[in-house]
């Protein structure tokens, strides 16, 4: 297996809203090494989230390609992309994006349901993951009963549920106080040590310092291609 787990080639993404065409990405080429901890930084509205979505197969590029493990994912059907997201990729978002009417445990289980894990295994594994993230007391709590940091840890547990190789985290600590941020960060670093490839969008310079590679985006273009470090 190659050392490069994700590769993008000249990614362009435009959004058409009414008559206005927005260029979110203007040609991004980058490579992410397996088991690495990479960071994407840049000002708000300059295309960081868009890049994450394209790398995770949540959206398709206007031009260019995304390769995961050497395979071009732009040729995949919607259903194949969903399968890829279920098995190979875990997303963590700034606004947690938990299912509000489900408990912490059920949120984690649901992710496993989509990759065909049986209910018994779902239950055991969800419990295990949440305990690992320090939430063994909160298994049956609804998101509204949890603090921001706890909610984000549930989201991380959910992202880990199917044992994905890649974790894409879009400002995971952007909505947290510094204490919760430290707590979440701690977990992220541990995951990287355990062999996950982690790509994280952040404004936090301290996090960026810990990263092996830092990509800086401005106006949909890479300023720092990550190899400078």
């Amino acid at each position, binding site marked *: 297996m190659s050392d490069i787990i994700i590769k993008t080639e000249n990614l362009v993404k435009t959004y058409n809203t009414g008559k206005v065409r927005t260029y979110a990405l203007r040609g991004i080429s980058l490579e992410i090494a397996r088991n690495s901890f990479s960071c994407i930084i840049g000002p708000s509205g300059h295309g960081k989230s868009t890049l994450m979505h394209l790398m995770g197969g949540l959206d398709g590029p206007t031009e260019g390609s995304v390769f995961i493990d050497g395979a071009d994912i732009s040729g995949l059907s919607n259903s194949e992309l969903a399968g890829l*997201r279920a098995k190979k990729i875990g997303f963590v978002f700034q606004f947690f994006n938990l299912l509000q009417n489900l408990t912490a445990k059920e949120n984690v289980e649901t992710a496993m349901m*989509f990759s065909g894990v049986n209910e018994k295994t*779902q239950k055991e594994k969800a419990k295990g993951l949440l305990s690992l993230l320090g939430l063994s007391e909160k298994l049956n709590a609804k998101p509204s009963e949890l603090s921001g940091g706890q909610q984000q840890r549930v989201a991380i547990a959910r992202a880990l549920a199917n044992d994905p190789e890649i974790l894409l985290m879009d400002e995971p600590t952007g909505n947290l106080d510094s204490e919760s941020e430290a707590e979440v960060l701690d977990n992220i670093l541990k995951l990287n040590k355990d062999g996950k490839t982690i790509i994280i969008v952040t404004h936090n310079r301290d996090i960026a310092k810990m990263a092996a590679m830092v990509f800086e985006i401005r106006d949909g273009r890479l300023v720092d291609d990550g190899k400078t470090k």
Partner: protein
Amino acid sequence: MNIPKLVLKNITRRKARFFFTLLGITVGIASFVTLLSLGGGLKNEIKKQASELGANLIVTPKGWCAYEQVSVLTGEQLPEAIPFDDARKISAIKGLTAVPYLTERTAIKNSPLPVIGILPEEMKIFKRWEIEKGDYFSSQDENAIVIGSGIAQQFKLNVLDKLTIKGRQFPVRGILKGTGSKDDIAMFMSLSVAQKLYGVGDKVSFVAVKVDDISKMDEYILKIQEAANVAVVSDKQLLRSVLSIVGTVSLTLQLIAAVAILAAAFGIINTMMTAIYERRREIGILQAIGAREITIFKIFLLESGFYGLLGGVIGIVAGLIFSSIASPYISQNEFTAFMKGSEMAVTFDSKLIIGSLLFSVFVSLISGLYPAWKASRLSPVEAISYE
């Protein structure tokens, strides 16, 4: 977690909306079941009545259409009549027994009731009547009445009580034993007395005919028509006519119920579209964590199907309860009044129940198709990017 469980957790989140959408389909299915089971009960009852008619052939005035012939069963009065002379000519034909009678109406305490003028002896033998209380007519033109057991019960009448019919008083001579037919809710007097009372000269309404040899029905019909200028209908034809009229009526009612169900279907579509709009963020989340389009489609289709299942079950139960409460009132209606003689049985048949449930689920699944398809086509990115 499994999909049905996820669906159940979703569906009851908006309690009021869930309730009203469910109410829509419940009311639709309940009215459907009510009308269908009442219709089914009506048909069974008509078949029973026809079998208790005791006649193979009914002689009616010339040129009656099927609807008019049905009045034989309903007891409805129509102006045409048969001269008694014709009735006598028919009686004279060999191989058959013919009994003429006159149907008129009166009322006790504002309830309309049939008064039937009969040839007492002939009719008693023809109908195999038995006396429950009191006596039977002692002569052909006695000024008295004999009443059915149903009437006696309903109006608490006893032998020797007096009833006023068309301004004249008649003592109750006797009460017939229950027959389970419309005879239970009729009053009988001698034909000549009835003819005088109602001023119809020597006319009779119908002649009931029993033949000795059923295989020669067509021959008898010809003979009767040769003997008198009348129309003849067999009990089978009569039954067919009534059933087809009842069929038309219940078809109309079912169409009304179908409209109610259609309205409920739009209710489901509306609810589902609103739910999808509200939950587009969640749909995006589900997609991000690996739900396929087909899975999203299934989740929402199941959700709307659930309305059909639950609404169907409640609607069927409500419909059956309602139809058993309503059936006695329905039988007071003009058209169905003749059925009051016996308790109309509501048909609780399993075909109706299973059929209605499947129909309910089917309708709600169809209603869910478009919303579910819309949900599966949502783009995840837009939904999850913003708070």
